């Protein structure tokens, strides 16, 4: 009592404790130790998150705009193009710089990197560079004529504009490619040619499928979660084990099982044919297409919907429904007006979880693995294999991979 009841005295610079130390200062001193302790306790996790999460994200984000090739391997050209206004052709100095860079690059054997980088943006750049570089060592001034003689593409202003555009340290072209856009030769953002457009379609398809999966999972999970939350403990636990069963099964087993069930010669089709619902010749294709993806993913993601719902429903005492009923609401009204609104936090949490996870999984299939379950348009010239990761795929693939 004696210590804590000493009144704080009001001094000229605010409240002070009995011995004249400002109250704020002595309070700070008192809490500093406990703050330090708290910090020490969370330090391992902070360090872990920093190393395993924050740093990779920063790295990934910086790489998605990182553009070192042109400025590093064509330093003189980049430098001399900074003064060029982009109209017509650059001056003799730029051609001279390019010839020097090409010669130096050939000797240092790093010209290939810048050639590939520019080839993403405009096809033919690689061969242009290799061809010109071979001759660059023997060129005499004026370099403009010499280079154009080596390859007449060097009198194309678009190529110079491209080099100038990509000589910056950062580029937006990866992101543009991810949404089926590109820079036109004059530097405007335009759509890619139709036959090269695929990502926006895949984006939409991924979101749409994820929405369907989330909706199905919600429909299936809601009654189960309700049962889990209201059953007596014994049977509730049994049901919980069943719900968690997919977690205990390896992905491989689950996938194989779904194939066994859903394929055209599979269990489900056999049953349908057996009871005469469909004809032998009309067996339904239920796997390696959207249907199969939706069925299998809904199954896999169901627990992620059930668990948040269950945890919310568990906290809703039955007396709320009783109260609603005794106040005159029928079962449906009571559910709609009293029970359902209280489960919204669970619906939100579960839906976000399932939606994000299914986006992660479908997009990984679409872009990363090119799995048979994904439904790529077969006419598309783009092959989605890890080998071709580059260009537009870089930011996105990294993005997906981080899940």
């Amino acid at each position, binding site marked *: 009592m004696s210590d804590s009841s000493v009144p704080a005295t009001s001094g000229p610079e605010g409240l002070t404790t009995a011995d004249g130390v400002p109250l704020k200062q002595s309070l700070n001193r008192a809490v500093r130790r406990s703050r330090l302790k708290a910090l020490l306790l969370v330090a391992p996790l902070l360090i872990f998150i920093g190393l395993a999460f924050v740093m990779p994200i920063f790295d990934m984000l910086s790489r998605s705009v990182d553009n070192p090739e042109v400025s590093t391997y064509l330093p003189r050209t980049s430098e001399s193009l900074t003064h060029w206004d982009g109209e017509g052709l650059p001056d003799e100095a730029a051609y001279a710089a390019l010839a020097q860079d090409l010669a130096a690059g050939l000797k240092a054997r790093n010209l290939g990197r810048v050639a590939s980088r520019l080839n993403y943006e405009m096809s033919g750049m690689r061969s242009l560079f290799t061809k010109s570089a071979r001759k660059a060592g023997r060129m005499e001034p004026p370099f403009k004529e010499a280079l154009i003689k080596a390859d007449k593409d060097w009198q194309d202003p678009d190529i110079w504009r491209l080099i100038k555009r990509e000589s910056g340290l950062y580029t937006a072209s990866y992101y543009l490619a991810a949404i089926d856009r590109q820079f036109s030769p004059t530097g405007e953002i335009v759509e890619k040619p139709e036959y090269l457009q695929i990502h926006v379609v895949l984006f939409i398809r991924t979101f749409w499928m994820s929405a369907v999966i989330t909706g199905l999972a919600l429909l299936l999970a809601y009654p189960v979660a309700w049962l889990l939350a209201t059953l007596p403990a014994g049977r509730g636990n049994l049901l919980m084990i069943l719900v968690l069963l997919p977690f205990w099964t390896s992905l491989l087993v689950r996938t194989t099982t779904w194939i066994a069930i859903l394929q055209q010669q599979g269990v489900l089709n056999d049953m349908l044919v057996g009871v005469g619902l469909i004809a032998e010749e009309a067996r339904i294709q239920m796997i390696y297409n959207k249907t199969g993806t939706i069925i299998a993913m809904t199954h896999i993601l169901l627990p992620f919907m059930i668990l948040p719902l269950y945890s919310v429903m568990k906290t809703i*005492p039955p*007396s*709320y429904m*009783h*109260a*609603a*009923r*005794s*106040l*005159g*609401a*029928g*079962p449906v*009204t*009571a559910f709609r*007006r*009293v029970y359902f*609104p*209280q489960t919204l936090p669970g619906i939100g949490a579960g839906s976000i979880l399932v939606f994000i996870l299914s986006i992660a999984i479908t997009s990984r299939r679409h872009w990363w693995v090119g799995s048979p379950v994904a439904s790529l348009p077969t006419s598309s010239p783009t092959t989605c294999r890890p080998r071709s990761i580059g260009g537009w795929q870089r930011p996105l693939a990294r993005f997906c991979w981080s899940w």
Partner: protein
Amino acid sequence: MVMTAEPDVPQETSSCFARFSDVQKSYDGETLVVKGFNLEVRRGEFVTLLGPSGSGKTTCLMMMAGFETPTHGEILLDGIPINKLPPHKRGIGMVFQNYALFPHMSVAENLAFPLEVRGMSKEEITSKVANALDMVRLGEFGDRRPGQLSGGQQQRVALARALVFEPELVLMDEPLGALDKNLREEMQFEIKRIHQRLGVTMLYVTHDQTEALTMSDRIAVFNDGIVQQLATPEALYEAPENAFVAYFIGENNRLNGVVSRLDGGEAYCTVTLDGGEEVKALPVAIKAMGERTQLSLRPERVRLLAEESSDAPLPDNVFTAEVKEVIYLGDHLRTRVAVCGSEEFIIKTPNADGYPVLKPGQSLKVGWDAQDCRALDA
């Protein structure tokens, strides 16, 4: 304590509003939680079901409200059997122990809920909700969420919500259990006031005898699945009919013995205690000589007899007691004495002039009248 004029006189059946008729309930098919429950509640009456925890009070209320079905027997409301009627068609208001206010609705929306589901018009709802809020003196709190109210205020909202649709019967299941003592007393008064003003029939459940004694017109002491005694608070306290009621309501000295003389002509019987003492008592629940009995005696009915005073007539029973302990309680003193073989015999004396100051170890004479000493079932 509220007393009605002649509550124990049986009234004509038409005034019986809610009725449990021989109701039984089992949850597991092995044990009966409620066995042969009979209760009649008259219109406008405040009846309390009083019993220890786990005695089946909530179960009875739930059967009346329609959330549990009786295993046997009938429940009638206004003469109509309601066993098959779903809860929302019974028109019974209910106040739950944890209030069960909808957390996602404001106070006003909570009150509007029963009116909305009845399809009332907007204006009617607004005015009824405002009236109900005024009735429980929460006029300004309509926009708050239940979570932003104190326990007592939530309780009052729950009460208002159960009354706002003007039900004829209101059930309350230990509504004041979660409140502190002062608030509880305030709410007891409030509920009583509202009951008298609206004239609504109330069936109230509690395990707190003070609460039951303060508020009720009649109390049904409930134990072991049946009603032990249904009477006014006064009758319950003054004239308990069995050992459980005597034990459960108020404080009570118990002495065990055997009936040694029981004469139909005489008003009193004689009981020989297990220690050999003979006590004159009022036969209440005994029928024959030789039967075991428990004598019940209220602590405030025991008199301390000063040695020299001989002007007042001696009580029917006089014994010598030894003081074991004196507890000072402000307005009265509780003295624990050893008498008639009991070490736990309590005497209550007012803290006032004319009463002796006792010390532990002291020996003195105590006595009581035969009519205050009720011979109940053993």
